């Protein structure tokens, strides 16, 4: 029993120990390639640096630090993402999709679903975050701050 407990308590060491620095290096390689595609200014108009010089300098620094992490970082890998976090992220992606139809429809659905997902069972609380708050925020920003929200299924009811 003791052994089993000890094993579970040990920090997880998985592929992310190497995947994170390697992922950063791969991203940097891509960014470096992109930077080689920038237009260049003729030498006579050049003011100190070409447009790719500074990004390439920073990319070089990031790669150096990532290589250091690859060989010297001894920190344990984080725990696996919990189901709750995964579902919350799923809701975020769902929000982005619904927001294309109507921003406030997306906000209301996301807020209400998030409250329910996180365990809120009182109807008034879900109603408050899913309906009352988005409506109040819409009229606050539209009326007081004069923000024009993107037209959509619900906002068209107000904008006509």
């Amino acid at each position, binding site marked *: 029993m003791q052994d089993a407990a000890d094993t579970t308590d040990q920090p997880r060491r998985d592929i992310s120990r190497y995947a*994170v620095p390697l992922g*950063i290096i791969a991203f940097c390689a891509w*960014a470096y390639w*992109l*930077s080689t595609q*920038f*237009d260049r*200014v003729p030498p006579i*108009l*050049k*003011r*100190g*640096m*070409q*447009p790719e010089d*500074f*990004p390439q300098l*920073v*990319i070089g*620094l*990031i790669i150096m*630090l*990532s290589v*250091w*992490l690859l060989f*010297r*970082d001894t*920190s344990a890998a*984080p725990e696996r993402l*919990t189901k*709750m*976090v995964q579902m*919350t*992220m799923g809701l*975020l992606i769902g929000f*982005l999709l619904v*927001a294309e139809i109507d*921003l406030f429809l997306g*906000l209301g659905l*996301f*807020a*209400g679903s*998030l*409250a329910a997902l*996180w*365990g*809120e069972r009182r109807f008034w*609380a879900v109603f408050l*975050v*899913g309906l009352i*708050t*988005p409506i109040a*925020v819409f009229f606050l*920003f539209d009326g007081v*701050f*004069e*923000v*024009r*929200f*993107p037209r959509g299924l619900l906002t068209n009811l107000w904008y006509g």
Partner: protein
Amino acid sequence: MDAAILNGLLALADPHLLMLIFVATLGGVLVGALPGLNATTGVALLLPFTITMEPIPAIAILTTIYCAATFAGAITAILINTPGTSASATTCLDGYPLAQRGEAGRALGMAAVSSTIGGIISVVCLMAAAPLMARAAYNFAPPEYFALTVFGLSMLATIGDGSPVKNILSGAFGVLVATVGIDLLTSIERFTFGMNELSEGIPFVPVMIGVFGISELLVQADNLHVERKQVIMKAIKLPSRDDYSRVWKTILRSSGIGTFIGILPAEGATVASMIGYNEAKRWSKKPEEFGKGSLEGIAGSEAANNSATGGAMVPTLALGIPGSPTAAVILAGLMVHGLRPGPTMFTEQADFAFAIFWSMMLVNIIFFFIGLWGAKIFARVTLIPIQVLWPIVFIFSIVGAYALEQSMMDVWIAIGSGILGFFMRRHGFSVVPMAIGLILGGMLETRLGQSMVMLDEKWWLMLTRPLSLFFFVLTVLALFGPTIWGRFFKQRSPLKSTGE
């Protein structure tokens, strides 16, 4: 300068502005007391609300939130053993044991008094030091500014409890993100993928909202099981004469420490409170009481973290280098309002600068009274279920991100930054250096480009200029000093930063 000090004070005579500062103080205390929210997140979320305002009320609101939220962290630290902000983590060590002994009121009274004194001392230092620093920096040429900005970024290594290499990497990533858009020196587009929305670069505000607000929402998804129980409190008690005689030296010492730490680029209230607490314990006649309910512990921590707020504004306003993570968001706010922090602020916008200083002074007085009479009510807000709180925070975050440019692209940027920030935090990369790198990136590149023009593309000539060399030496010390120090001396402090 005298006229500017007076004009700044007169600007506060506007009843509308006074009312705004009062409401913002209440809001700041609320933000500091709410679980998961801190001064940085609060300022980032409030920033879009200030866009339509005049610069003085807009920035006064942001600095008010900063000061009030830093203080309010103590309320939850003492009553529910959960620091409202990481800067109050050390306040838990003595505040909660005192509260459990039925002396919550006394602990909160001490926190309010030491926070107020610390805050006022730091604002006085700010009023004296910022113009002096600005005057010293007035003759800086681009190489000196470049070296100073590099030094500011190097200080990111010590933010939070993450590895210095990961912090610098995160800061460098922020600088890289800042290169997106049209290059100011050559007018050539970079990393825009043909999207017009990106030609002016990645906007600060949605990124701030994402990395501080939305990433925290994902962190909170793992904290649903945390139960918060409030200690019963009868009434707040002001410290007695005996208490004052025991703690006055601690308050003064911690205020000095906090102001100094705040002035250092990137170091904020969290580091200040830890050092303030440690020094209070080291100098105390009764160090054995620390951790068991020592009033000196509360005073040491609270005076230091509140005095760091004024200190952090010194380099922010005088040099354009943020003195803390929250100051970095305020710096973004200054830029959004078209203000140019730096030496010229004290010649061209001196009235504005002193109005901000006076408003910070006022906040420290207001939150003293709010702390004394309102703590009981504010402590109750910590019991708001996060199932209700965070969906509402999300709605404000998204609408705030959209409102600035009224662009859906900013909503995508906020969500993307939030998810990225969450994964960065999971893998031990602090998001604060990334945010500061994003803000300072443009400045860094412009000054390097100007230096190259000035020095005829011979960058090494920067090392022949005494001030640039001085800042580069400081940079090397900031990056490698702790390692060298650690090799030769045993580390004494058992406390670790929780990051801001």
